[in-house]
């Protein structure tokens, strides 16, 4: 980071008629304002309202609110489906993020290389990300179909499955969770690869060359040179991926609707089911916001780490 002293030194000569415009402070505020205002008005406001809903007895059909304190949160915790969803949220997020980061890194490194057909590979790999999830998930649903699953057909063809086996991807809790994760990883890893690719380019070639000349092998360079320098962007990518996954319901909702026997719900899909479909808005809000405090702390810690990594 450029130090505060340098900024001050630059700011001083600019005092005068254009003082305000020239003032770094004003400029900083001015440039940040549109984004902050947008978010405050369209997210923070509604979020506060959602918090308020979660402490009330609102339904989708009635906003004559009565304050009920933490009753919705208590009731949520007492519900076994909620507890399953809570656990699933962590399983879903952690496992898919591990895959996304590993896949994203390898893919980014691979795409940096020159090889034949790289253009077409890049196109194919970007396809998942170019498909709206509502359609992509329907496509996957078709691939995991209870009768026509092409996944099973291929597994049989390569003799991983016996001729009479026909696993029900969406009918067995563990398999259904695996199916959901497979879609989520599929749709998010290209993006994480792009972000990492972008981060890779911020590493000056000289450093890599120097490391190579010093005798560092490929793996060594990756782990001791590239990854540390990627850390800031990687942290942001992980953080974003985590948070995005935590609040995502697309894959679950379209693929299994939480089934079989409500074993694959995550908090956001269960919140939608209870709060919107079944109409208990307050309960849904409590479910959706349940992890907000935890996430807040986690996110702030991670952002601090990211900031520290950058200032080194």
């Amino acid at each position: 980071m450029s130090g505060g002293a340098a900024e001050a030194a630059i700011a001083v000569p600019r005092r005068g008629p254009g003082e305000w415009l020239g003032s770094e402070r004003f400029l900083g505020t001015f440039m940040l304002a549109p984004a902050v205002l947008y978010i405050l008005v369209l997210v923070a406001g509604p979020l506060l309202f959602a918090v308020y809903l979660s402490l009330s007895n609102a339904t989708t059909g009635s906003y004559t609110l009565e304050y009920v304190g933490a009753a919705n949160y208590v009731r949520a915790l007492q519900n076994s489906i909620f507890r399953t969803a809570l656990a699933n949220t962590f399983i879903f997020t952690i496992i898919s993020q591990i895959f996304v980061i590993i896949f994203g890194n390898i893919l980014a490194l691979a795409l940096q290389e020159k090889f034949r057909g790289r253009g077409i590979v890049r196109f194919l790999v970007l396809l998942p990300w170019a498909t709206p999830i509502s359609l992509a998930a329907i496509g996957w649903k078709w691939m995991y179909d209870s009768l026509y699953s092409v996944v099973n057909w291929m597994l049989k063809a390569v003799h991983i499955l016996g001729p009479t086996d026909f696993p029900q991807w969406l009918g067995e809790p563990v398999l259904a969770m695996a199916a959901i994760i497979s879609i989520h990883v599929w749709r998010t890893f290209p993006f994480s690869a792009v972000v990492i690719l972008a981060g890779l380019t911020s590493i000056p070639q000289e450093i890599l060359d120097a490391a190579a000349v010093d005798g560092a092998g490929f793996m060594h360079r990756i782990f001791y040179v590239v990854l540390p320098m990627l850390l800031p962007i990687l942290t942001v990518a992980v953080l974003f991926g985590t948070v995005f996954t935590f609040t995502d319901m697309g894959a679950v909702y379209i693929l299994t609707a939480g089934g079989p026997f409500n074993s694959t719900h995550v908090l956001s899909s269960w919140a939608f089911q209870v709060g919107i479909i079944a109409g208990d808005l307050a309960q849904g809000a409590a479910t959706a916001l349940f992890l907000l405090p935890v996430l807040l702390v986690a996110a702030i810690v991670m952002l601090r780490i990211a900031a520290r990594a950058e200032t080194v």
Partner: protein
Amino acid sequence: MSEEEKGTWVRVADNRWRRVSRREFLKIAATGAAAASLWPYVNVPSAWAQARRLTILHWAHFVPGYDEWFDKTYAPQWGKANDVQVVVDHIPFGQIPARAAAEVAAKSGHDLYQHISPAASLEPETEDLTDVVEPLIQKFGIHDIARKSTYNPKTKKWFALSNSWVPDPGHWRKDLWDAAGFVPDSWDNVLQAGRKLKARGVPVGIGLGNDIDANYVLRDVLWSFGGTTQNAGNEITINSKNTVEAVKYVRALFKEGMTPEVLAWDASSNNRAMLAGAVSYVFNAISIARTSEKDNNALTPHIQIWAPPRGPQMLGGRRLGAQHVILAYMIWRFTPADRKTLAKKFLTDFISNWAPAFKGAELYEFPSFPKTVPDVAQQVANDPVANRLGQPNKYRPLLTADRWSTNVGHPGYANAAEAEVFDTFILPQMFALAATDRMEPEAAVQWAFRQMRPIYAKWKGRRLM
């Protein structure tokens, strides 16, 4: 892009800057052009735009031809007669509650909002339709399913108006069942035939997943075994011996007559499995029979329909099935008065002339106001497609549908608590937990009871029931 940019920073930046500025210029030009082409979007037709409009929200109907008829023939004709432009929008059936929630939150939306399952929780924000429904009842009578799904006896309010309900008969492969020597007339037969049919690779298919078909058919089983989810006084009755018997039955059927695929099913799976010849018995609206006719499926003559099976004699031997979906219109309370009047007139006119809709819906939908289609029996007995295919009796089992069909929440009303139990798939989960041996039947029933208790307490606390 790469070659000329080598060199000192300033020069590079300078070069780039000029490039950027050209790009910026192009961007501005393009934005201008885009802005011009966007103008049509500003003048978009929407709910609040003009006075003499009536906006209706429908699901995408089973029968594409029905939407075609309603949107392009019926609605414009009515609009012309009443000097109104009628706009019909469609959304997928699974998302009807979400859009309704958004319209209520926005206090702005469609003048007529059609649901496909009872939405009692929305009652506080809906117009009381007593002045529309009561005269229609005088004239045409009303089916009990419609009353129980759109009327709240506690608040004495008609919060919706149902135009039709859809029977949910069993679809069976007559050839296979004949070979097994049974007809699907009792659940006991289903189990016995199921054992044989499973051995032959064509099991029974009673859905156990998170989907509405499972929700309906499992209620059939529950009721046939004498169990209920609630009584007429809105008290939970799930924790009964009869429920345990029903759960035990489904567990036996799952193990002996079905395959685990029923756990993975969504609303479309039983259609596909039946049409592919992979199962021998499923429950659905008549969409399976209709699709096979349209696709010229070779199995068409063998796919027959039958009323839901009877329960065991010792448990009362009842024959009762849930309606498949129930179509009902709501008018939001916040809709401006003049448009409420218009919407009510539309409803009165639509119901009073519902006969063409019955025809358009190809026997999927049955009238909620029975006398609006006096010749239901003749039409069912003389379905043109069935006649053409040489199976004039195919849809005859539907003739008795109004006797064996009932509403979700039977014997009570389809209240908000029952709707939440339905929408969160508590019953399929109860049956599936026991069927897959994750719980003993008694424990599964107790589990369901524990799930339902707070739901009922909560909605009673909201004074809707």
